[in-house]
């Protein structure tokens, strides 16, 4: 008892020296170091992989990246911070037009255009976040839905700037000379995307481990208790929205590069809802879930089309089959695994580990 009285007003506490990991272990204990190592390995594997794929397969694969990055943003916002957004398709559009207009009117290098896509969208996201901080649940969904519905119309209203229904063309970057003739523009774009994916995943993984991620989760779980703990709920919500929008904007910029053009038809409310569905199917709130979600967004429609062609269904049925499969998958996964594909993956890993332990 007496001891605890003495240390009544402790100075910021330090870990005893012995408990601080030392040497290489200490370096590896830094999340940044660990994540960068994993990221670089993933990049190398990806580079080796695309060497074995046809140009068409690489093109298909490069559609995954933009969705993946946008899904990371959406998933963190919804799964970690508890805010819903039906406007992430529109935020992707902001990023896409930012990149396109910069390419059209300036001679900016690619990296600058991509960063600008993220930052411009982040500003819009922060504004949206200010609105969001005052709204909850269905009202927030409604407000973000209004953005998704309204934004494409702005592009047709100001045709001279945004290109109207036709949209604007986007030219794909050429591979730098040091890669020589080894990389086609398609391959180069896939590599750029993979770099962006790795960087975004590392940044968000760091964020979620930090006190900022913890604050996101606290707001999600109990707003009053968060306030009582000395944390501003609206500030946290605006921050979450801004960072989430930055990811969506970068995804949008990459999406414009992959598509080779931007037009309002590509960023309708359907995109926003598809993102939301893919997030749930993949596993809300987890970074790995965003990977599953993006893969599903790209490959399931293709499979569905192939399947419907094999069944020789008539045109009107086969055209809608992909959407129907998507919907079915959503319902099935919510019933079987409320935490999505990533939830199933975790369960399997857990079971395998237990099996290994038992015989030992």
């Amino acid at each position: 008892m007496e001891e605890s009285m003495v240390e009544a007003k402790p100075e910021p506490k330090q870990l005893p020296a012995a408990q601080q990991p030392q040497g290489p272990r200490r370096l590896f204990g830094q999340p940044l170091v660990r994540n960068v190592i994993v990221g670089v390995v993933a990049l190398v594997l990806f580079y080796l992989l695309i060497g074995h794929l046809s140009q068409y397969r690489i093109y298909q694969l490069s559609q995954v990246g933009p969705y993946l990055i946008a899904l990371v943003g959406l998933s963190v916002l919804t799964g970690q911070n508890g805010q819903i957004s039906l406007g992430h398709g529109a935020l992707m559009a902001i990023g896409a037009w930012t990149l396109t207009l910069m390419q059209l009117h300036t001679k900016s290098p690619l990296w600058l255009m991509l960063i600008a896509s993220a930052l411009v969208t982040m500003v819009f996201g922060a504004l949206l976040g200010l609105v969001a901080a005052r709204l909850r649940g269905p009202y927030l969904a409604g407000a973000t839905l209004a953005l998704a519905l309204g934004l494409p119309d702005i592009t047709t209203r100001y045709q001279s700037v945004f290109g109207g229904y036709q949209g604007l063309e986007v030219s794909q970057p050429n591979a730098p000379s040091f890669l020589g003739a080894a990389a086609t523009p398609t391959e180069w774009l896939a590599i750029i995307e993979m770099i962006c994916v790795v960087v975004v995943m590392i940044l968000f993984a760091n964020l979620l481990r930090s006190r900022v991620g913890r604050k996101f989760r606290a707001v999600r779980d109990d707003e009053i208790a968060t306030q009582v703990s000395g944390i501003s709920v609206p500030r946290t919500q605006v921050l979450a929205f801004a960072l989430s929008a930055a990811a969506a904007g970068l995804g949008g910029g990459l999406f414009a590069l992959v598509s080779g053009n931007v037009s309002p038809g590509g960023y309708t409310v359907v995109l926003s809802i598809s993102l939301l569905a893919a997030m749930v199917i993949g596993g809300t709130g987890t970074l790995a879930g965003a990977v599953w979600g993006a893969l599903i967004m790209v490959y399931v429609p293709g499979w569905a089309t192939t399947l419907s062609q094999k069944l020789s269904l008539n045109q009107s049925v086969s055209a809608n089959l992909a959407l129907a499969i998507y919907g079915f998958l959503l319902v099935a996964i919510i019933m079987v695994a409320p935490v999505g594909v990533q939830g199933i993956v975790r369960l399997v890993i857990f079971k395998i580990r237990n099996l290994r332990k038992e015989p030992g």
Partner: protein
Amino acid sequence: MDSKVGLSVDQVSVRFGGLVALDRVSLEAAPGEVHGVIGPNGAGKTTLFNVMCGFVKPDSGTLTFFGQKVHGLRPEKLTRMGVARTLQGLGLFPRMPVLENVMIGADSLAKVGVLRALIGAGPTVSEEHRLRAAAMAALDRLGVAGYASKLPPQLPYAIQKKVALARALVSNPRFLLLDEPASGLSEEDMGELGDLILELSSELGIVLVEHHMDLVMRVCSNISVLDFGRVIAEGTPAEVKANPLVTEAYLGDEVQA
């Protein structure tokens, strides 16, 4: 006022529409003492608490903290100045482990910003170690460090209460507002809670809203009695016990001696 006064409520009135929840209520809580707030249901105890921690802005009157006017400040500001509180309904974060729950309480001790958090190296890591250590120490002090990795809904109610208290204490507050800390506790747990409150009161000022009179009479050095939004009595436990107005408020009728 003099420097002894810590958290002071002066002539505070709060109206909800036509209902007067608090009517010119004054209360002074000093560091090193336990100030009890009692009164029948609906007397305004919780409203008074909500004024003291910034959730309710008074229509008139002032709230001062060590001589500084603080009414109108948002709750998170007050917490950062050193007024911590526990909530009647626990208010633990159900999907975060106990340790993270307490680390949220320690967040005001942290400085690392968003950019550094994104990059995740250097100071971010050492600060996480520091917050973790502070949270573990707070849990350890209340004897619940063993539950650090558990989720709150998995734990017995009494343990959850201790976790909530650890979260309030981890930021080293100067004042602690306890909203019905004994509700749902067994006799034995309540005794332990009384010991803890007395121990804590040597370090910080405590304001206690509580229905269990045994506990209130045991730990409080001063008691304010509220009825219909007014302070009807104030004094030491013995004085309050002897005050006929108090008995009347609780029993609803004049008591013949």
